[in-house]
């Protein structure tokens, strides 16, 4: 196994589309890295350049101690699984999975053991004799994944390998895949648009947008200390709330305004940073599970609002509150009850708040994580 390094890698498609813009990062040996972002963010292009399916316009790609820019995919010793299967239609599932091993003069017995083992893990051992045309899209993806996992390459490159798998089975596959990665001690790079997949499996997450790296950090880091509004809104469900706020003096201290006449003491960690910015328009980020519905207690901030919608979800409810023209979502108890348009107060603690500048970047001062 080995580490992967990208140095100042850039990729254009034609003269006008800049798919990946000067990105650099390193994946440690045996690390599980998720590359997360919306469609068009450059994550698949990045993966394809590491695999050798696309050539970088500039920059270096290192696998272990080699620069691989000039090597063909087959020379890179990487195993790949993609969203769209790439299975050989005239071969059985078994033959498809065994193919990478047959290329490597491994005994038939050993091949059989390894194919059976990986097929069992991915619950496709009962369809080994079928042709791809006879199985579902989700099963095809599992076969593609099995074909990658049956090998022992330097690096595994997985691009949305579960997107067509039945959601019911996907949660089980997440656990399995993470366990397989730990057992193999393999370096995994896993591309996904699904923040839950990235959060739940990865050691670290690389978040991309418009071909640019936004943040690289552990799941806890990107959730608790997103570097900008984009990351804050992309990671976590339901998404983080953002409210307009302004720094003002009042009640013997510096305060943040909240919509509908609410206010909040300035969080201590922002003291030195923004106290001098009186009147500046900022954005305040607060997670739904950090907001209470009820009168504020001492030291808390809050605002008056009214109940817009209540969505019971079994374990908890999501309550949408209107604060004038602004809206917040609150994670409330499973048995929360209230009437539409009923007046309520929301409250939250200053230390749970993140402040973002007009450019969307996180202002200094982070949350403990």
């Amino acid at each position, binding site marked *: 196994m080995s580490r992967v390094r990208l140095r100042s890698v850039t990729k254009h498609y034609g003269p006008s589309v800049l798919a990946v813009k000067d990105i650099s990062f390193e994946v440690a040996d045996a690390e599980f890295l998720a590359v997360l972002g*919306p469609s068009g963010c450059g994550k698949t292009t990045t993966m394809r350049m590491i695999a050798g399916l696309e050539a970088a316009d500039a920059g270096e790609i290192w696998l272990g101690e080699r620069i691989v820019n000039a090597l063909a995919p087959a020379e890179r010793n990487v195993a790949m699984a993609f969203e769209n299967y790439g299975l050989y239609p005239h071969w059985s599932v078994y033959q498809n999975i065994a193919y990478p091993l047959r290329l490597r003069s491994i005994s038939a017995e050993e091949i059989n053991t390894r194919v059976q083992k990986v097929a069992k893990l991915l619950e496709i051992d009962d369809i080994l004799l079928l042709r791809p045309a006879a199985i579902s899209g989700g099963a095809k993806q599992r076969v593609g994944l099995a074909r990658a996992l049956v090998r022992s390459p330097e690096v595994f490159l997985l691009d949305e390998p579960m997107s067509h798998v039945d959601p*019911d089975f996907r*949660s089980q596959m*997440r*656990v399995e895949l*993470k*366990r397989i990665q*730990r057992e193999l001690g393999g370096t995994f790079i896993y591309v996904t*648009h*699904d*923040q*839950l997949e990235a*959060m*739940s*499996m990865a050691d670290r997450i690389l978040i991309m947008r418009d071909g640019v790296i936004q943040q690289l950090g552990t*799941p*806890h880091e990107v*959730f608790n200390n997103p570097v900008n509004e984009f990351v804050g*809104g*992309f*990671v*976590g*469900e*339901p*998404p983080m709330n953002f409210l307009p706020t302004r720094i003002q003096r009042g009640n013997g201290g510096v305060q943040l305004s909240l919509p509908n006449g609410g206010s909040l003491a300035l969080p201590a960690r922002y003291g030195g940073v923004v106290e001098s910015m009186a009147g500046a328009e900022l954005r305040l980020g607060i*997670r*739904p*599970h950090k907001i209470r519905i009820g009168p504020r207690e001492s030291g808390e901030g809050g605002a008056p609002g009214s109940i*817009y*919608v209540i*969505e*019971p*979800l*079994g*374990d908890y409810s*999501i309550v*949408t509150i209107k604060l004038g023209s602004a809206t917040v*979502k609150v*994670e409330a*108890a*499973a*048995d929360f009850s209230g009437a*539409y348009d009923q007046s309520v107060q929301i409250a939250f603690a200053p230390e749970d708040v993140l402040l973002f500048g007009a450019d969307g970047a996180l202002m200094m001062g982070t949350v403990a994580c």
Partner: protein
Amino acid sequence: MASLQLTGVKKRYESVLALADVSFDLADGQFMALLGPSGAGKTTTLKSIAGVETPDGGEIRIGGRLVNDIPAEGRNTALVFENYALYPNMTVYGNMVFPLKAPARAEKFRAESATQRVFEVARTLGIASLLERRTWELSGGQRQRVALGRALVREPDVFLMDEPISHLDAKLRFEMRAELKRLQRDIGVTTLYATPDYAEAMALADVIVVLREGRVIQVGTPTAVFNRPIDTYVAHLLGEPHINLLEMEIQSRSGRLAAVGQGVEFAIHPSQAELLRQRVTKLITVGVRPSEVLVSPTEPDGGGDSGTVIAVEPRGATTVLVVRAGGQQVVAKVGGEQRLRPDSIVWIGVKPESLYFFERESGARVEVPHGEIDAAGASR
């Protein structure tokens, strides 16, 4: 607006029995979700009501009127599809007035009254200022309003919706779900909404109808279906991560009952003991929601079963743990601040009142008096 009633509706496609027996009552103005996996019969049910499919048997009544023999255009239902399918090159007004120009309705809505009607509906939905815009210029939330508006101008008796928001990205889906719920309530239109997603069904609906293989297996409010599932199938269908279903046996331990199996033991709440006493030594399936599993890194005072963490899924506000205890695998949902690692030793426990009991063979839930379960539900 009108009520909707299905009685014993059946439909077979050659060798496939799509609807075996579907009956339910949807009251005027109510929001009902049809919940089930693909193949459960959701879309066939919607199409049968719209008149696009002809059932083989049973009765469909809209506003009390039997409509089996009335063609689709005479039924006054509005079928709203995935992603709402607006005409991208038409204005909002063009999209909304379109259904009123259909020959069947041209009589009812002459040009002047059609315009009037579009303005009225646009005002109700808060999109009157968008009427001149092309739909591709609109945000997701605005498009949803236009699509609902287009269906509403016809004054339909019933809205039939087939997974309209399931293909949107997560963030937008949260917004649209809340908006849709509020709009439906403000407009008061009777709505039947098909989805395979339990969270959508629970969040939106007044009543959920659970379909399985063309049969209605449970009807109830979201909380009732979640807290009092009729069997292991429904228990598994609602909730994420899924409910733990553990194969256990009821045993008597110095006069008190416990569920015991493969090295794991849970005390049974006194309120449930009476009913379970007759099942001592009987095989049973015990259900416990991941959010009701207590995980402690040290041995708690009351004791408990120790186990090993085999997987950790951080999700931000929460963390999902998979714990192997004895021969059982138990999934727990704990606070996001919990920093356990794989191979950590932990103790697991459950609140006795949070256990569900199911017959091992049939999967049917052992009925415990409703009051007791309600009390347990309220303590969540």
